[in-house]
């Protein structure tokens, strides 16, 4: 493999990994606070991409405006989803909440089939993001460059919110101990809503950038990325934001590189993530950056 080809693959892995990271953050934040796998997160991702698409196609908004619109709508949707599907079950057995999450995921997917149609839709990539730039023999579409930049910027903002602001402190408190946090007069429901809002916002962002990178939409586009990003969050250590980003990049890198180095395995590409998940769960269930939690009896 020539150096140029190798760099090309690295560039691809970096942009795919960034997208995974964006979505994985949503999983990890929700899990950190509610101990719940938000199965519908991948569908929120899909929804973000669709709203942006309709913003440009139907409302004739410029792409950045429809991006903002989509992010806001998706964020509200995420908050509403938590209120309807998860809040009534917060004190129920874990399995019930998970079934509700799976149900919500299927409901959103099927509603999307109903409303948006099952046929894939082509996305018009904005000119700025669709340009091909060449560095020597490595050529990259601008959107692939933009994605990592956005990811790191958003990560920095998020870490600032979580570690430096009062809301962030409340988030960390709720994730450590819900009851104690409530006793300290923290509005647990409010914090949960904010968490869902932020998670959905990032998912929408990821979805829109995804639709610029792979310009096709379909109602089930969120399923596989959703599962993979959850796996990324587990690999990095669920509950840890930097861990989710690390896991996302790792997963992107492994996927692209294995296919690049061993093309015969490309048929198995979608299985890598799951194999990785099972290895991590068995060898180090807390993930790379996760903290061990004592089980309360």
């Amino acid at each position: 493999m020539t150096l140029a080809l190798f760099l090309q693959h690295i560039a691809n892995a970096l942009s795919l990994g960034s997208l995974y990271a964006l979505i994985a953050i949503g999983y990890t934040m929700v899990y950190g606070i509610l101990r719940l796998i938000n199965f519908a997160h991948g569908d929120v991702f899909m929804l973000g991409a669709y709203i942006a698409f309709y913003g440009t196609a139907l409302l004739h908004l410029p792409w950045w405006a429809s991006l903002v619109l989509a992010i806001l709508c998706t964020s509200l949707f995420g908050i509403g989803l938590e209120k309807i599907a998860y809040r009534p079950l917060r004190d129920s057995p874990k399995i019930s909440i998970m079934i509700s999450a799976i149900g919500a995921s299927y409901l959103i997917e099927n509603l999307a089939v109903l409303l948006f149609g099952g046929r894939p839709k082509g996305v018009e990539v904005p000119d700025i993001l669709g340009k091909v730039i060449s560095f020597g023999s490595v050529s990259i579409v601008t959107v692939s460059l933009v994605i990592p930049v956005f990811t790191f910027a958003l990560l920095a903002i998020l870490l600032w919110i979580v570690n430096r602001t009062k809301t962030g402190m409340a988030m960390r408190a709720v994730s450590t101990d819900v009851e104690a946090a409530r006793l300290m007069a923290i509005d647990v429901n409010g914090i949960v809503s904010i968490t869902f809002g932020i998670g959905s916002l990032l998912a929408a962002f990821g979805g829109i950038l995804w639709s610029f990178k792979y310009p096709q939409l379909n109602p089930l586009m969120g399923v596989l990325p959703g599962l993979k990003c959850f796996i990324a969050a587990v690999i990095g250590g669920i509950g840890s934001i930097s861990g989710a980003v690390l896991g996302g990049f790792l997963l992107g890198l492994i996927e692209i590189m294995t296919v690049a180095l061993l093309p015969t395995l490309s048929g198995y590409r979608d299985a890598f993530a799951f194999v990785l998940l099972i290895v991590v769960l068995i060898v180090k269930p807390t993930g790379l950056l996760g903290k061990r939690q004592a089980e309360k009896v």
Partner: protein
Amino acid sequence: MKMTKNYTFSLIAIAVFAVFLVVANTFFDAFTLRVINLCAIYIILALSLNLLNGFTGLFSLGHSGFMAVGAYVCALLTMSPELKEMNFFLVPIIPALKNLTLPFIPALIFGGLAAAFVGFLIGAPVLRLKDDYLAIATLGFSEIIRVLITNAQTITNGAQGLKGLPRYASTYVVWITAALVTLFMALLMRSSYGRAMKAVRDDELAAETMGVNVFRVKVTSFTVSSFIAGVGGALLGHMITTIDPKMFTFLLTFNILLIVVLGGTGSISGSVIAAIVVTILMEALRFLDEPMNLLLFKTQGLPGLRMVVFSAMLMLVVIFRQSGLMGNKEFSWGMLKNAGAVFSHLGKNKGSPGGGRRGSRGGRDA
């Protein structure tokens, strides 16, 4: 006195149902018969998932993987060499499998055994995990199985699937299997094994201190459930007569989960009733996907509306009535007699989970 009366009722019910099946098999058209048989297959599948979810408290989402293993193994054993040659036109099948043909029943059992073996192999590492991690790991394994099947072209014919399987899964075969599985589950749950499973479900730590080998109980339950799922998958394959990897996605597991939740996790009769109701509804509600004439306005065809209804149903049940149709109770004739009283009784008894374990005598269990 009352016991014998209930037994008489049950025997009559079973006899009536058997007569119904004979009549259906002779007079009903192919489509109706297929729906009736699908009910039996979903009963088998729902019971196997309920064994894990409802009785052992293991939340597994990997059922479609075990069904795929059962279906493929059974299909490869029943197909004649000529049929195999016809199917494998892109890449020839490996020689070892080419001339191997077994009658249906042994092939069905081998399918189940293969699924059980895979379940055992997967279960040993995965069952150390709990709750949501277990769910996602089993889901992962079923995806891995599917990807392997898609890629193992010389054994499974890859994405083309296997077509033209002999239609061995007749009405009698599927319903007798369903009855056997139901009977097995009922007996299992009364045995010490079944009680150990319930103990693990209710409190793992307490079960362990009482001397239950928790890990072994879990692996046993997982293996048995995989066996039943494999048999169900094999029957499904030999009813539809075509299998391909796309059939065994998570959607299939979702349908079974829907049945288990609606029927009540931890109720055998609940699963049986819900399997029948859901399967019939899935077919009956097909009109939702087609163009409708609602007097005032006409709708275009709305493909997808049917599945919207089902996913909404699942969510509503989970949010408003978590115990499903039967909770963890079983059907009994007394229940029918004073259905009204039972409902108020259910409401009162909600807080005491131990209160509803009696009364599985008679009824539709057998």
